């Protein structure tokens, strides 16, 4: 099957406006009788559900949490990018587009990314209109800060809770539609299969997580807005419930999986403290605006951070990348931290951490405050006291969180941080219209592969999720549904629904009946370790081959020795987890396969065999300038390639020096 990305013809900057003016429309009367299922209620899902319901479609939303508002988009801290150029610092749609393509190490589609940059401004406008309380300047206008991988200030934010505020904005729009009956919510429901009839997505099978009932839901189109699959690593910054199941079921039903090996390791997370660890906590990238990252110059240093004099500290990011300093993209910062720790310069008990230090920023802010308050010849102690207040206002909630988790006061001593799995650039392959290879089945937000290439820039995930939901899908879905207006309400008594439901029930009963020795987490932790060690921040051929074997063996053991207590007809969180981990066990293998296939280093995918003399990622454009789209086969996978064509940007070695 040849991949058709359906990118419109014409000049890059005109593609989206041309598309919008020429795509097919569905008239309002017809919209009423068209059903759309939206799975997942994060930024992409909630914004899509609300926007489509506003247009007049009949929408059903599904989420496994108890309320739509809990989706993990809520945890995004730092901000959302938009090419508004409010700061008059040279930003433009083109620059946002360029930064995103470059940040993604030239593995994203030009047309998609340009569209993303084009609609970015409208997202801010929409959110402001919804009553999202963004940070503002004293003049009452919106405030911006800078993020990694850019040299302009284009990040809009609401303290350290931007994701929360944006999600609550989208959720409020969704609730408004629920109130008038245009959206019907199915919370505490998990999608367990897509129903495909005559090659088109026609509905889903979902399990009511409270009663255990298996339900059928028909629709003219199904949108998967189910986020990323970082939890394949067990430890990640994702929520405990984040999973790949919906995307994976779609994959099994014919949707190709794009670039599964592209995972983002975020450089600033709180390090692992022990075997009990259930998840990792991110410290926002915005901290790199002011914090300086360093390790001791001496290997195996035992002194406390504050006792190490300035000249014995190695500010390795500033040293290696003077142009971007502490604000290099995430993949670069993460690898640099790993390099230092592997070389024996790590800090903390585990020696797998680096310092993120605010002392300089506190002093700097303090001095500004002294000037502001007219305190002449202020001593350092006064400046530090005032500086702490400024830092508290900017990052207080993050500092508090750090203290709760580690028991250490970050105002007094540098934070210890280490990279952790954070985001997955890979996902379901979609065309320009966000449709997967199954007609009528769409993937939005982190669940698709489309806009971030091999590495996502900070504050771009929120932008993409909302762009897809508010401004892309409302147009592109019409182009498909215009041909579906004659399709009557989907009858869920059709044999395809029977078949899908039976398969789901059979699988659930199987989990319950294995009655083996080990819990789901036992297997999940092992899978996570394999993935982190061999398909994590650095990968090599040998390791990946081993990982594939290990995962297969683990999968076999899982299906033989799993223990799921309780029954299928009740609330059973262990059963929910079992289904998710079963899918991770298959996905993990595909990720390794993809990483093994991609004989180059790019963005978050770092193959040790492919690096420059200075240890930077080395792309192999002549062989790998493509999207790897994997088709699920009865045995294994088949690789399809979508060539990436750069009409406007000329790929070069990324340089942040």
């Amino acid at each position, binding site marked *: 099957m040849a991949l058709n990305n359906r990118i419109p013809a014409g000049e890059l900057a005109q593609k989206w406006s041309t598309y919008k003016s020429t795509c097919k429309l569905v008239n309002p009367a017809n919209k009423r009788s068209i059903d759309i299922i939206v799975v997942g209620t994060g930024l992409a899902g909630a914004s899509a559900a*609300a*926007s489509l319901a*506003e247009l007049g479609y009949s929408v059903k939303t599904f989420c496994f*949490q108890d*309320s*739509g*508002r*809990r989706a*993990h988009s*809520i*945890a995004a801290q730092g901000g959302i990018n938009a090419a*508004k150029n409010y700061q008059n610092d040279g930003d433009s749609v083109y620059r946002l587009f360029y930064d995103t393509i470059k940040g993604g190490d030239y593995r994203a589609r030009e047309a998609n990314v340009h569209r993303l940059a084009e609609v970015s401004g409208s997202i*801010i*406008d*929409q959110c*402001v*209109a*919804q*009553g999202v*309380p963004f940070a*503002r300047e004293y*003049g*009452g206008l*919106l405030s911006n800060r800078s993020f990694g991988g850019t040299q302009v200030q284009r990040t809009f934010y*609401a303290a350290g*809770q931007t*994701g*929360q*505020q944006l999600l*609550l904005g989208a959720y*409020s*729009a969704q609730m*408004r539609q*629920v*109130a008038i009956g245009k959206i019907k*919510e199915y*919370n505490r429901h998990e999608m367990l299969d897509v129903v495909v009839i005559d090659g088109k997505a026609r509905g889903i099978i979902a399990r009511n997580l409270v009663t255990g009932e298996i339900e059928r839901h028909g629709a003219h189109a199904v949108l998967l807005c189910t986020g990323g699959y970082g939890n394949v690593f067990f430890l990640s910054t994702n*929520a*405990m*419930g984040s999973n790949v199941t919906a995307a994976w079921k779609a994959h099994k039903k014919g949707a190709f999986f794009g670039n599964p090996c592209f995972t983002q390791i975020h450089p600033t997370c709180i390090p692992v*403290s*022990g075997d*009990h660890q*259930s998840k990792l906590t*991110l410290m926002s990238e915005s901290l790199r605006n002011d914090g300086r990252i360093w390790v001791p110059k001496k290997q195996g240093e035992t002194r406390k951070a504050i006792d190490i004099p300035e000249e014995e500290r190695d500010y390795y990011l500033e040293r290696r990348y003077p142009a971007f300093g502490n604000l290099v993209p995430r993949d670069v910062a993460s690898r640099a931290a790993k390099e230092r720790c592997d070389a024996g310069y790590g800090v903390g008990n585990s020696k797998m951490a680096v310092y993120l230090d605010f002392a300089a920023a506190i002093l700097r802010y303090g001095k500004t405050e002294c000037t502001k308050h007219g305190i002449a010849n202020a001593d350092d102690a006064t400046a530090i006291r005032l500086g702490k207040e400024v830092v508290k206002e900017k990052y207080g909630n993050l500092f*508090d*969180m750090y203290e*709760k*988790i*580690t*028991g250490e006061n970050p105002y007094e001593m540098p934070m210890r941080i280490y990279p952790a799995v954070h985001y997955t650039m890979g996902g379901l392959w979609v065309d320009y219209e966000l449709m997967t290879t199954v007609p009528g089945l769409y993937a939005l937000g982190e669940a698709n592969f489309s806009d971030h290439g091999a590495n996502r820039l900070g504050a771009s995930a929120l932008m993409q999720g909302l762009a897809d939901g*508010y*401004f892309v899908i409302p147009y592109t879905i019409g182009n498909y549904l215009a041909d579906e207006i004659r399709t009557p309400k989907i009858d869920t008594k059709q044999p395809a629904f029977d078949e899908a439901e039976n398969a789901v029930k059979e699988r659930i009963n199987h989990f319950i009946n294995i009655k083996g020795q080990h*819990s789901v*987490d*036992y297997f999940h932790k092992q899978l996570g370790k394999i993935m982190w060690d061999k398909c994590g921040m650095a990968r090599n051929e040998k390791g990946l081959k081993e990982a594939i074997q290990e995962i297969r063996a683990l999968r076999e053991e899982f299906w033989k020795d799993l223990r799921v*207590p309780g029954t299928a007809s*009740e*609330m059973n*969180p262990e059963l929910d987890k079992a289904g998710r981990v079963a899918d991770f066990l298959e996905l993990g293998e595909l990720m390794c396969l993809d990483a093994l296939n991609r004989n180059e280093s790019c963005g978050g995918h770092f193959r040790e065999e492919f690096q420059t003399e200075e240890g930077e990622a080395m792309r192999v454009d002549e062989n790998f300038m493509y999207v790897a789209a994997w088709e699920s086969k009865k045995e294994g996978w088949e690789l399809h390639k979508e060539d990436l064509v750069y009409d406007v940007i000329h790929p070069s070695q990324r340089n942040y020096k």
Partner: protein
Amino acid sequence: MEHKEINLNLRIWRQKNAQDKGQFENYKAENISTEMSFLEMFDVLNERLINEGKDPIAFDHDCREGICGMCSMHINGRAHGPWDGTTTCQLHMRAFKDGETVTVEPWRAKAFPVLKDLTVDRSALDRIQQAGGYVSVNTGNAVDGNSLPIDKTKADASFDAAMCIGCGACVAACKNSSAMLFTSAKVSQYALLPQGQPERNTRVMNMVAQMDKEGFGACTNTGACEAECPKEISISNIARLNREYLSAQFSL
């Protein structure tokens, strides 16, 4: 941070489903690292229960970084446990002493029926939001974000209210099971912003009516909600709601 290991006696509410009466059961948690979060301690306990062939304890949790609002335990008489301004998932075992007995109950309120063990149904909060917790603006209708300057102090106050994570600790902590802090946080967020003005009166009336309909109690200003709110949302928002409600009632 220096860590040690502690042993605890746990008294945990077990209830098979909404119909079951439920009762406390006692468990021993041994060799618990003080570095663990409270929920990680539950993970360890559940792992043991599964290995012993028993039913693990059901509890709500998701992000485990204090923002999704899903976790909801009443620990030793306190919603979200002993630390102020902290969700259950961010509570760490440093808060407990070796040998301590820890009682864990679900949120208790008529409007929050127990689904299983420590899991409750908080959909009533969603319905309060549906009653008016939004600005009626369709996608695509917006004007430029900077076309309407907003007083920074008001924007900040609006944000302070908007920080609510909808966990329901205010209801759990209130002796009347009142949802006033939750509702007032939403009302305040919009009342303080120009975008919220057109629907100001209907919003407060409808949200309060829905709150009463859901079976939440009335506010008697004890302040327990503010003391337990993991986001430390102020009861000045409740006063604002009262003000909004009065002015809406007297408006022509």
